């Protein structure tokens, strides 16, 4: 029996992307997947910055977040690739390393918490896929026929317990997109990073030598939209395109859509109900193809 998930919404989604949160809630509710919001969570914390500045603090803060879900007795569900990497890796590391677990628990005991290692961490992609493609297909009322979609899995989605499973979640992502009735578009640079992490250190590398190449490859392949499973990739594709235009004169105007938004659209939700109207790059072309308004 499905017991449900403890929702870890993440800083980005809570403060910047209510469209991702609204569409995720609607999709889970439509599919009858139970969930409860985690309360008192902090930043995961993100793997690049806090993780690099102080790995032990990164591990301890992640363990604190995991302990909240353990208290709820539910597996964690993340909607962000970065949160997935942090919580998944911290969870696995602490489960496999008793010394690290003891060290972290010594710190956590000062704030009255304890990491036990009793739960799993899942990405939304896995949760939806494991719920069943057929169940999702049955809920589709507005197939996205004719919409050409390029999938950008995002680097952190490749994290897996076994190295040979690195592409499993990316494949799940593609199958979820296909279930909506949309047409998957293959492009050469699928594995290339969106370029967001490089922005902190080298904007030219991030925009010109990463995002620009990625967008060229997607547009060349004829996609109408790029689908993502991460708010950070989402931001890089949207804001990065504006920066590319102003700084390099490169204009793509390629809309971005989060996987839950895509599925919610196929489930018949109106754009205004799931926040598609707050996208910086309008999804007009796709909505016209599907015959959806408002």
């Amino acid at each position, binding site marked *: 029996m499905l017991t449900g998930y403890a929702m870890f*919404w993440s*800083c*980005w989604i*809570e*403060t*910047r992307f*209510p*469209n991702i*949160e*609204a569409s995720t*809630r609607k999709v889970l509710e439509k599919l009858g997947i139970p969930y409860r*919001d985690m*309360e*008192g*969570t*902090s*930043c995961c*914390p*993100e793997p690049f*910055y*806090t993780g690099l*500045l*102080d790995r*032990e*603090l990164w591990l*301890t*803060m992640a363990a*604190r977040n995991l302990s909240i879900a353990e208290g709820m007795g539910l597996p964690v569900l993340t909607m962000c690739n970065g949160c997935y990497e942090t919580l998944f890796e911290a969870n696995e590391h602490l489960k496999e390393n008793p010394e690290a677990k003891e060290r972290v628990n010594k*710190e956590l005991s*000062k*704030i*009255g*918490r304890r990491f036990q290692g009793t739960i799993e961490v899942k990405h939304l992609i896995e949760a939806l896929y494991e719920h069943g493609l057929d169940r999702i297909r049955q809920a589709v009322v507005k197939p996205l026929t004719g919409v050409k979609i390029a999938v950008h899995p995002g680097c952190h989605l490749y994290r897996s317990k076994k190295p040979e499973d690195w592409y499993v979640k990316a494949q799940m992502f593609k199958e979820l997109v296909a279930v909506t009735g949309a047409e998957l578009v293959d492009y050469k640079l699928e594995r290339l990073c969106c370029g967001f992490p490089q*922005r*902190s*250190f080298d*904007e030219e590398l991030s925009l010109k030598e990463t995002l620009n190449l990625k967008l060229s490859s997607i547009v060349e392949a004829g996609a109408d939209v790029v689908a993502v499973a991460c708010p950070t990739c989402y931001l890089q594709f949207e804001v990065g395109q504006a920066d590319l235009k102003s700084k390099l004169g490169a204009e793509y105007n390629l809309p971005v859509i989060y996987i839950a938004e895509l599925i919610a659209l196929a489930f018949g939700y109106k754009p205004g*109900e*799931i*926040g598609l109207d*707050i996208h910086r790059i309008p999804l007009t072309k796709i909505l016209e193809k599907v015959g959806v308004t408002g």
Partner: protein
Amino acid sequence: MKEIIEELKGKFKEAVHEVQEVKETRFIVRVDPSQLKEIARWLFDEKSARLTTISAVDLGMDFELIYHMAIGRSYVNLKVKIPKEKPTVESITPIIPGAGMIEREVRDMFGIEFEGHPDPRHISLPFEAPEGFNPLKGPMRGPVTETQKPGIEGVLTTGLRFPLTFAAKRQRVKLGLPEAVKCTAVDEASLNEVRRLMQDFKFDEKVGFDWKRKKLRY
């Protein structure tokens, strides 16, 4: 030597922040700048220490001064950290006259002021060198890059990388979402837990966070 260090710890208590035994004949002792002069006086007067030299290091956000004090064949390296925002420390020249020229050189090269120095003229720079010209003083900088500053300040103040803005709250309500999820940004007890962890790990010190201004120092 060990006995002298133990005596120093016992005498100056909280002013001794850390003691590191590099080897039997060399100890690094981090001390509070406010007690530096008294510690130097005690070592000089009571333990016959000699000042070999003073080194200055630009750490980015702070300067580190190292007072190399020899006692017989052993060494005590007294270290103090001086914030770049107010690079001032008491001069030890009134106690150890031999420190006079070294402090003047450090002042010239790094812009560190030695309060109470009897003759703080230029020594390495020309006398007409302009105010604020200090060849070895680097810019104020810390480990966090410009683009990451808001995120790190956000984590330290709210536990989240980004603030819940009024616009975000309005959009959330418009989409039928609660105005805010009960995260550290809106739950004081949870935020205190996370802050405690960050302070225990000295993360605030490491990144140079000023709790009064709720901003990074650079």
